[in-house]
């Protein structure tokens, strides 16, 4: 990390909205191909699904978002009832890492993004 970039957000360092756009579709393809978790990600109304994934990536990159822990609980409650647990969260984290690696994002930035996503685990799983 060079001196000049210290202080700018991860979102900016990672490439902003363009990076999010590149990541979202790659990520969603991986998720839909993964039998462990694809039932939690609807196959119908894919536009809406992608918009949600975009919000997720923006958040994971520390970008502008209005999510609160309470939002995370509310929107995932239905999935928790369906059996969503830590193993599924792990699978999503795996695809997040793989997607960013595939796009050539430096490892230290991936760790930062992963840490932000990881911080939502308890809220997502309703714990």
């Amino acid at each position: 990390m060079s001196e000049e970039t210290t202080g700018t957000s991860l979102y900016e360092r990672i490439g902003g909205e363009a990076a999010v756009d590149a990541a979202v579709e790659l990520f969603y393809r991986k998720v839909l191909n993964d039998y462990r978790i694809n039932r939690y990600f609807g196959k119908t109304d894919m536009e809406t699904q992608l918009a949600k994934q975009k919000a997720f990536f923006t958040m994971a990159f520390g970008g502008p978002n209005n999510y609160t822990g309470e939002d995370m609980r509310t929107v995932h409650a239905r999935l928790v009832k369906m059996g969503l647990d830590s193993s599924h969260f792990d699978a999503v984290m795996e695809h997040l890492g793989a997607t960013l690696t595939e796009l050539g994002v430096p490892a230290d930035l991936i760790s930062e993004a992963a840490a932000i996503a990881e911080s939502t685990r308890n809220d997502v799983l309703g714990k």
Partner: protein
Amino acid sequence: MTKLTIDDNSFNCQNDETVLDALIRQDVDVSHACKKGTCHCCMLRSSDSMPPSISQEGLKDTLKNLGYFLSCLCTPVQDMSIKLPEQSEIFSAGKIVVNEMLNRNTILLIIECQDVVEYKAGQFVNLQRQDGLTRSYSIANTPKEDKTLEFHIRQLPGGKFTGWVFDELKVGDTLSVSEPLGHCFYLPERKEQGILLVGTGSGLAPLAGILKDALLHGHSGPIQLFHGSSEFEDLYRVDEMHQLTKENPNFTYVPCVSGQHVPEGCSKGRANTVALDALSDLSGWRVFLCGHPEMIETMKTDAFMKGASMKDIYTDAFLVSTPE
């Protein structure tokens, strides 16, 4: 402060206020949910000026082109005229100039309509009978000098509207034609991009129009059309499409028949399956899907999984009314 105009009514929008917030504050009923650009519920259309680009982020290129924007992300920089989604459409008078069979169950209907001029092939209009019975049909031609619109209408057993078109509507009769709607059409951008067109039955109508539009604009990338039906007799314009492949080296046409008897020159199978077998990678392609809703739903996912970006997938599903 800027002014928002809807029909004949004006509303004010404070500085730093979004269009959505301003309209809600002034008791205009606009559907909305997330208020942060995710759900697209609050999408409106600007009919005079281009909305700020931030309010169009993530929308399909054709929607942007038509002036659609997310009202929750739109802080106007100038006065805007806005159309609400449920705002009643404007109808104009149309006169039938051609009503003839394209094949054993599909009619070619050509309507002269002086007032419907600005449209893109692939959009649709609502056709309305005197008594109000209304159905949506895709426009199969690019705008023409003689102000005619072309439609392909497939007969449906027990269909009230199609029954009327087949049995009663004559050349010289009139009906009402709505303004053009929908966002499944060609935009002359990225001309080197591959274009995949997949349609079933009279889903060829919008695709033929989109194809013609792309060729007229000198689209240079490969254009591949897969038109399918269960029986060969339900395909149409086969010779015309073959002729277009001779005139345009970048255009490929594959008629597909999913039933038992497959004539020479046709591929066996459903159009979407044949297309997927023929194209291993759709990264960077623009995809148009028209016809049976189930085909579209399946093919949309398949095209996406094969690499097509969701923003580049355009669909126009048949809406079939249940016979009463």
